[in-house]
């Protein structure tokens, strides 16, 4: 037997869902419009969710790298010289130090992947031309990563006999690039200066860590270390606790102000994304409501027919809900796939990083389904209520 002269006739069991399926299948334009309006809403929200999560990660990562958020100092009450908000007393810091080998134990903590930069320092009070000066032995590459606000005039020292002078120190000794300074009988060439930072770095002369350790017989010793930890998916307190266990002779302090500023920035972006998502959802629900209401008004006669046949309220609800549910599921699946593609297009523009890789999150398709189904159900509640209130005889006279 042929159906419409084309398809082979197949027997089936007529159930309510057949009516919903056939309605969606044979009213293609209406179905496509319903799915498209749901798709647009869900794809906007899910893309925003993916983009905001990735941008949030990106912001968080950049902020984490922008300055240290953990400070490791020797356990001592006698320090009175200030560095990074921590007192490092002139008298005792020469005897209070941490072993460099011990410091790198931090790379063995459980959350080692969160450790982005370790910037060790050996601070020594010395003199140039009989004037006191604070020397800081540092690893230049790590230090510059942790202090992204440093502006170097000249060049970053690359040799052991090269130095980088703080802004006030340069003025105090009237130093110029390529000038030579003598410290403890060793000569150093000024490779560059720092622009004013407003911190103690302005009064400090920065030398190679190994050189300072050798000059003052402090091999493998450091005074403190600044750590930049990536805290997007790990609480800083956890990293501090794990580090303290690895470094029993050191005091590990989280720079809470820094962390709070970062979290405020990240939270602001998060709140902004949620706000935009909420607006999209509200607008979409209103649009969907209007569309479903109009669609149901067109089906008043049909509802009257179902009533005349003997359908009760539950049957009518099932019919409408099933159609809306199937459409929203379809829209959610399409939106889940498309949102990754869209996010992949948008993210490089927002992050100015073409190598951004979006990690797949199973929660996103689940969110897409939840949002699509909830929006569709919410939008169809009043039209369904109206359909149930309809007097069947009036519905049948509507033509």
């Amino acid at each position, binding site marked *: 037997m042929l159906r419409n002269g084309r398809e082979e006739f197949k027997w089936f069991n007529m159930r309510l869902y057949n009516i919903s399926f056939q309605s969606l299948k044979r009213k293609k334009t209406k179905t496509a419009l319903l799915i498209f309006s749901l798709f647009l809403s869900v794809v906007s929200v899910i893309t925003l969710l993916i983009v905001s999560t990735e941008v949030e990660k990106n912001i968080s990562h950049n902020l984490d790298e922008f300055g240290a958020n953990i400070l490791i100092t020797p356990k001592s009450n006698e320090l009175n010289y200030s560095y990074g908000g921590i007192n490092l007393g002139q008298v005792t810091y020469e005897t209070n130090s941490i072993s460099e080998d011990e410091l790198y134990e931090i790379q063995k903590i459980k959350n080692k992947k969160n450790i982005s930069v370790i910037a060790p320092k050996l601070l020594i009070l010395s003199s140039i031309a009989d004037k006191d000066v604070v020397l800081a032995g540092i690893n230049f590459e790590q230090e510059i990563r942790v202090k992204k606000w440093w502006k170097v005039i000249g060049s970053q020292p690359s040799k052991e006999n090269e130095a980088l002078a703080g802004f006030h120190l340069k003025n105090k000794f009237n130093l110029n690039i390529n000038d030579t300074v003598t410290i403890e009988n060793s000569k150093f060439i000024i490779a560059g200066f720092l622009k004013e930072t407003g911190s103690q770095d302005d009064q400090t002369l920065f030398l190679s860590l190994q050189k300072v350790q050798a000059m003052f017989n402090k091999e493998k010793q450091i005074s403190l270390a600044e750590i930049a930890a990536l805290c997007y998916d790990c609480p800083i307190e956890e990293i501090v606790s794990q580090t303290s266990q690895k470094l029993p002779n050191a005091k590990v302090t989280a720079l809470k102000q820094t962390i709070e500023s970062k979290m405020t920035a990240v939270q602001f972006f998060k709140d902004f994304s949620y706000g935009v998502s909420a607006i999209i959802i509200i607008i979409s629900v209103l649009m969907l409501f209007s569309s479903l209401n109009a669609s149901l008004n067109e089906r008043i006669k049909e509802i009257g027919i179902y009533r005349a046949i*003997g359908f009760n309220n539950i049957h009518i609800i099932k019919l409408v809900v099933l159609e809306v549910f199937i459409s929203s599921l379809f829209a959610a699946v399409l939106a889940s796939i498309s949102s990754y593609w869209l996010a992949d297009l948008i993210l490089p523009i927002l992050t100015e990083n073409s190598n951004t890789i979006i990690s797949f999150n199973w929660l996103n398709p689940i969110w897409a389904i939840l949002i699509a189904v909830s929006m569709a159900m919410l939008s169809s509640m009043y039209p369904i209520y109206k359909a149930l209130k309809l007097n069947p005889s009036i519905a049948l006279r509507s033509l």
Partner: protein
Amino acid sequence: MSFIEINNLSKTYYSGEQKISAISDVNITIDRNDFVSVTGASGSGKSTLLSLLGGLNIPSSGNIIIDGINVFSLSSNQIAKLRREYIGFVFQSFYLINYLTVEENILLPLSITDYNSSQQKFKLDKILERVGLSDKKGRLVDELSGGEQQRVAIARAIINDPVIILADEPTGNLDSSTGNQILDLFEELNKDGKLVIVVTHDDNVKKRTSNVIVFRDGRVEQ
């Protein structure tokens, strides 16, 4: 006791502040095997009576008792069940679902019953043969002629094997030859034991029924 008892039935509509009495104080009894025609001028109340008989409308006063059941003492879901089990509707404009095929339209009442696939198929084949549409079951209803569409509507009305068939101007949109075929079908159904009530303007229909109820200004004339 009659199968259908209509007692002091009235239905009043309001059009703005104007009160319109569609039917007023109607008392009718109809037996189990009657073939009844309800006639009268347009607006005389005959279609209102039909919608009240089918529980599609609620009366302003009075009651209808079908097979001992007071229809309007039931809840809306119970009335829906009564319609499902006791009544089959046939309308002048057929009222078929145009995105469904002939077989899907006919099977609509069974979609909310416990009939399984083979039971549905058995009933469908029997009814399609009876209304002469076996070769058109896979067609969309819009592809059929008016007479064929009315036969689909009759098939849909009887697939649940109801006791009562309520038909509102079933031949109104058909030519006389096709209208006669539809009336033949109603006669057969009546002979098979169904109570058929037809609302009509058509004298030809009146002649073929066993009982004629005439409405004038919302009241039964004879």
